[in-house]
Structures are given as C-alpha cells and as structure tokens.
C-alpha cells in the first residue's frame, strides 16, 4: 500500500485462498487488518506487488495481478462484480440509471435495463419517488441500496461484497441475505466482508481469518 511521500505500508502478505462457484466466502478479522484491501486488489483498484490472482474469464484463466487495464475492464464488465461500501455518484445521473448502467455496458437495451433496475430497486424498498433523482443527496442506507442493486443487476460469475449491509435496517438486510442466497443458487462465487454477525452466519459457507496474512500483526 502506498500512501504518501513514497512511504510503503505493508498491509497483507502471502494471501492464498480460492472461491468456488456457488460458494460464499467471508473475510473475517478486526478492522484495519486488510480485508477491504484484499477485495480492492482483486478488483484491480489496488496494485498487487507479488503473486497472482487467477480468475476464470470467458473460459480461460486470466491473471488479474498482471493484466493490462483493458483486460481488467473487460473482466469487470463480464465476470467480476463489486459492491463497494460507498456509492460513487455521478452528477445528474438518476438512481435508476446508475443501477441500469452495468447492463447497458453489456449491450442490453435501455428499456430492458431500466426495467430490471426498477425491479431491483423495488425489491430493496427504495422509495419510488427517489428513482429518478441522482443519488448524491440520498441517505447512507438509500445510497447503499442503489449500490447493491447496481452490483446485483448483472449475472457476473464472481461478486465481491464490501459490507453491503453496513447501513441497512433489519428488513433490508434480510432482503440482501435473500439476494445473496439466490446468487449462490445461480452458481455465483461470492467473496464478502460482513461485520454484522447475523448476516455473516446466514450467508457464509466458509470464513477466512485475514489476520493470519497481516505482517503487522505478526510483528507485534
């Protein structure tokens, strides 16, 4: 991890695991231990200094740790989805279009993409009057639901989830748990971070303790 003035912070080292299709694996361990960093490395937001990230993309194995930007974008479009903790809002784009966007990128028609987006927003109980508004002024929970809908709208074979339920109430958490179960049934490989124990117990097939990979922890 590289922050400022060329200072290098070792975050995680020697991380090894695999996730099968139809399986939900949860990264566990205390805050700051590097869980989100692992997800961001998998998604290509963080560079990988050493090692490989092999992913089954369009029938062949791609090493994301060394793929060029174009290949990473293609993998993101077709194979690898990501629900981040926070929504990155684009000025003037409505909630329904934010959600529909990944489908448009894959060539689905606008009408169909908007329809699917509306279904998901309805499922996640986002008030109907918000759908046409840009999400910049939404509450944390509302933004998160837009974000979840955006992540779940496609049939990506792999889905990374960074605390998708952190600011949701019990009712909506249950909806997300149900959506995750549906994804698993459809054969999606899921890798997530859930601080909420109830959600974690409901979705996790396996928990990986990330503190085992933390060099700082090892030194202490």
């Amino acid at each position, binding site marked *: *991890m*590289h*922050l*400022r*003035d*060329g200072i290098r912070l070792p975050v995680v080292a020697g991380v090894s695991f695999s996730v099968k299709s139809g399986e939900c694996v949860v990264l566990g361990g205390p805050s700051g231990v590097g869980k989100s960093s692992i997800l*961001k490395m998998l*998604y*290509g*937001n*963080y*560079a990988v200094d050493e090692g490989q990230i092999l992913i089954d993309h369009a029938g062949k194995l791609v090493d994301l740790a060394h793929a060029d*930007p*174009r290949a*990473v*974008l293609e993998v993101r479009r077709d194979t690898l989805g990501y629900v981040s903790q926070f929504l*990155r809002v*684009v*000025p*003037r*784009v409505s909630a329904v279009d934010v959600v529909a966007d990944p489908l*448009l990128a894959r060539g689905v028609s606008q009408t169909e993409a908007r329809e699917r987006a509306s279904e998901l927003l309805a499922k996640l109980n986002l008030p109907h009057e918000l759908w046409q508004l840009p999400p910049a002024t939404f509450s944390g929970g509302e933004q998160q639901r837009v974000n979840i809908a955006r992540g779940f709208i496609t049939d990506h074979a792999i889905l990374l989830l960074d605390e998708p339920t952190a600011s949701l109430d019990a009712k909506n958490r249950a909806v997300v748990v149900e959506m995750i179960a549906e994804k698993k049934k459809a054969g999606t490989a899921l890798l997530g971070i859930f601080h909420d124990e109830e959600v974690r117990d409901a979705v996790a097939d396996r928990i990986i303790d990330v503190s085992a990979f933390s060099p700082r922890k090892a030194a202490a």
Partner: protein
Amino acid sequence: MTTVPLLKVNDVSKFYGSRIGCKNVSFDLWPGEVLAIVGESGSGKTTLLSCLSTRLMPTSGKVEYHMRDGHYRDLARMGEAERRFLMRTDWGFVHQNPADGLRMTVSAGANVGERLMAVGDRHYGQIRATATDWLRRVEIEEDRIDDQPRAFSGGMRQRLQIARNLVTSPRLVFMDEPTGGLDVSVQARLLDLVRSLVHDLGLSAIIVTHDLAVARLLSHRMMVMKDGLVIEQGLTDRVLDDPREPYTQLLVSSILQV
C-alpha cells in the same frame, strides 16, 4: 469488436531547443477507450496532446493512426491536406477555450454545419436538421441556432464546441481541459454530457486535465506526467486509489474533500 489499437504512440519526444516538452512517451489507445493525461501546469501534457494531434511535430518518435480503410498511417508522413481532412472528419479537438475551436462570428448552426460540409454534405435542409439535432443533444435550445456563439455563456460555448466536433462521428476526440474555467454546476452538466456521448458513440478520447475528479469520472486509463515524462500509468481506479509514485501520491492527497 476491433482488436487493434486506434492510435499507436511509439517513443514520442518533443524538445523546445534544449528544454524537454515531453520525452519517450509510448502507449496504445484502443477503440472505445478514454485516456486521461494528468499532471500540473508545465508537466508536458498539452505538448504531448499537440504532438499526438499533429498540431506539433514531435522531435522524435512515431504516431500511427488506424485509418478507416484499415491501414495504419504514420501521421508525420501524411500530407498537409490529408491531415487537415482527418482533423475535420475522423477526429475532434475540444479546446479549453471554446473561442479557439469555434468560429465566433458565424451562427451556432453554421459552426456545426461547417464540419458536415467538410465531409461532403451539401443539402442545406439536411445540414440544418442535423445541426438542430446536435444542438438538442448538447442541450442548447433550438431557437438559438441562428445566434452567434459570442452571445453564448461559457458553458454553452463549450457544449457547442462539443457538438461541432462530434457531428461528423469522429472516432477519436482530443480534449484539452474541457471543463477548465467553468463553474461547478456547469462542469457537472458538461461532464455528464461528455460521459454519455463517449459511451453512446463508442468514441476513443484523450483528455488532458489537471482535475483528478474529471479523470476519475471520464477515463478508463490514466497517465501521470511530470517534467515531460510519464511517471505512472494504469487503470484510472488503480492510479487514484493506490498511487505508486510519490508525485502521484502528492497529487491524489492534495484533492480537497467536499
């Protein structure tokens, strides 16, 4: 889907006397790809853009463009007439100052129509209809078509410049600080517009900006320049979220949070 680069840049350098403009820049630009070139004033980003768009002749190195006929052409070896034709049809250039890209004393409609005539359109009614359609796409009211851009606000001029450039369905658009000097709400509108146009038309674009938020929003890939050199490049998300070079880290950590 095409699988060859639209633009191939190989070891391009430009010196002003003994001073470095830009040095040893190489990259490929793929169809549909948006590349942002960022860096502070004087870092060489505009020099590089000028070398790529044939406004300046590089001191050394080669820039090749994949023409519509499927062949690569070395831009430096093209004749002046051919180069001008390319710039008026298959390329677009959006200047920071709209006055540099527009003809300020002819009507908005004529500014858009002129490029159509360059590609051989001669039917007045057709040209006017297309111009009207493009003004609508860039959110300029139809009843302003006969006004001169002198009577337009800065944001409107910039949108008009974009319409003028995109009307001939170019495959590659160069933009030099397209949102510079606009206030934030106007900027947001322009960014949204550029983003959706680039997406809908499947254009490739090279955008020079010092605004990292603009780069994040519009670009797939990004190059960071300092003192004429490309010091870091990669996926936009990666460069901004995990900058490797101290200078990029400084740039990223200097962004004001709202």
